[in-house]
């Protein structure tokens, strides 16, 4: 076994967890809400890409991102917003929406796994590193950079951070809090859509495939610092490295336990996450 194989595996898993964690961190940062259905939005993205893969991988990813952004907007407008405005806990709505998406997909596509394509399976880029790893890392780096720059240097991004930090003051300054929340959902869901498309290109997909992944990705977001996009990626990297090393040197049976030990340690020593300095941060 070479170091490149270890790094390839760890980088892929880190990027995968990180990309999903971005969606959690965006939504939690601004709305203080765990979007329990985020993993299922990614699954919808995989199925959208499955239907559009004939148009090519890039077109399929774009269609998947747009479709998931629209789904995120729908979810925010018709599920979470009414629930929050009535003072109810939206978490149970998120759980319900997640189940609705799972079983809706199962009703349309059946619950058996399907494969969009296997034509990219044999593509190795260099040094035994597969195209799957390169795609995942490229998506993770570009998403992190784009979102960080967007949030830090654009007017809309600053407005989103203001809405996350102090919604009342931000609203008094004329920032449309509802629009910021909707945008937050759309961006997080679009990233999930692109990730879903990447998964569909290299693995088989099924309606229930992300039922447990969301929990792991949320752990990554918490470890990195909820509300921080680079923190989500860093959390993904920490969890991935520890999981991969545990699988390699001990047994993969313990990798989930290791993740939750890291989460416990992180909450004990870094309650705001590795990069989290403030509670309200986007």
């Amino acid at each position, binding site marked *: 076994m070479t170091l490149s194989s270890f790094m390839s595996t760890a980088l892929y898993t880190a990027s995968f967890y990180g990309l999903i964690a971005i969606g959690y961190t965006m939504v939690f940062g601004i709305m203080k809400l765990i979007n329990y259905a985020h993993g299922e939005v990614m699954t919808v993205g995989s199925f959208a890409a499955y239907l559009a893969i004939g148009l090519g991988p890039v077109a399929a990813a774009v269609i998947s991102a747009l479709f998931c952004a629209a789904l995120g907007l729908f979810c925010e407008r018709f599920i979470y917003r009414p629930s929050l405005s009535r003072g109810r806990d939206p978490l149970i709505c998120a759980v319900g929406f997640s189940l609705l998406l799972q079983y809706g997909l199962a009703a349309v596509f059946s619950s058996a796994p399907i494969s969009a394509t296997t034509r990219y399976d044999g593509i190795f880029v260099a040094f035994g590193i597969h195209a799957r790893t390169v795609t995942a890392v490229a998506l993770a780096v570009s998403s992190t950079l784009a979102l960080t720059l967007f949030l830090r240097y654009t007017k809309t991004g600053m407005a989103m951070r203001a809405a996350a930090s102090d919604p009342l003051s931000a609203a008094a300054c004329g920032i449309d809090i509802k629009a910021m929340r909707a945008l937050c959902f759309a961006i997080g869901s679009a990233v999930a859509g692109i990730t879903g498309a990447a998964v569909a290109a290299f693995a088989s997909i099924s309606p229930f495939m992300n039922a447990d992944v969301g929990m792991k990705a949320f752990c990554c977001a918490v470890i990195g610092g909820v509300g921080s996009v680079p923190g989500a990626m860093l959390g993904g990297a920490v969890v991935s490295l520890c999981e991969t090393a545990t699988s390699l040197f001990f*047994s993969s049976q313990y990798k989930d336990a290791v993740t939750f030990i890291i989460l416990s340690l992180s909450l004990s020593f870094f309650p705001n996450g590795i990069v989290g300095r403030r509670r309200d941060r986007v």
Partner: protein
Amino acid sequence: MRTLCLLSALCLVLTGCSVRREHAVIGANLELTGRLCAYGIACREGIELAITKAQRQYPHLSLRAVFRDNRSENSDAAACSLALRDVDGASVIIGPTTSGGVHASLSAVDDVVTVTPTATQDSLIAPLLRRLCYCDSEQGGAMGRYAAQKGYKTAALLIDSSSDHSRCAAEAFEKSFIQSGGTVCDRLYFSADDPDHSPTLLRLLKTSPQAVYLPAYYKETAAILRQARMMGIKTQFLGSDAADSPELAALCGDAAEGFVYTNHLDPAELVDFSAEYSERFGHPPTAYAVLGYDAANLAVSLIVKGGADREGVADALFGLSHFDGVGGRVDFSADGQSKKRVTFIKIEGKIAKGGEAV
């Protein structure tokens, strides 16, 4: 004269009406949705074909198959068997196809004759249970001997930690492979819920075994074969009957090429049945379809012999020493175990091709 004719016709009609057709319900508790639905759907098709043919063969019987979907969940399997017994009045229950499902079903209903087509776990023994397949220790042991015969000196075990089938078959493989002169160099575990198995597979690059025994369901088998190929692992993978599904090659493409697994029958021996089945359903049968067909035929033969009531069916079952089905002969021992030959299947050109039998 006209009155006499009318009276005669009336008598004939009344006589005809008075011929009693015995009604019998054959219940099927199957994985029609959920992660293992390929097994249940194939099995249902086999049962439907068998019931249609049996209905023609035994016109005095009114056979009705009732299918209940256990969603590939063990808890639902128990509920389905209860419903088949108490709501549908099933004389015999066919299924589930998995060992966990049968365990759950038996924990809820153990007073109705149950025929499982493919549940292979060794510990599945009950007075009213019969299976039409070999058990895990047989298929794992046969694969261990096969691997040694093929010249592999080292092997790794890749076990689904959530599957009793996987653990049991792997243990049998290990025992027979070591007895045949091989060495098991590593024992890896994965979870069926893992979205990515590459961290587990990384160990194979470190230990470099000549063969990997992977007794897992087709979905996980496909995912692992595909990811192993992406990681550049070229080791020979060996599997169990749980890998048998036309979906396997569809899910992992060329990665399935050369994959060898144990199965209940050789597809080459089913030419006539395949033609009949393909004509009705538009695709060739899998082992699950064939054994579903055989299970339905066994259920019908028990009803014909013992009557539609459950006691009669149970009495007929106790007198049964073997069953000759399309999928081959199954011998039933006094303790309820089944013995059947193990066949090896190799995927070549995306098609499952039969090999030697043990």
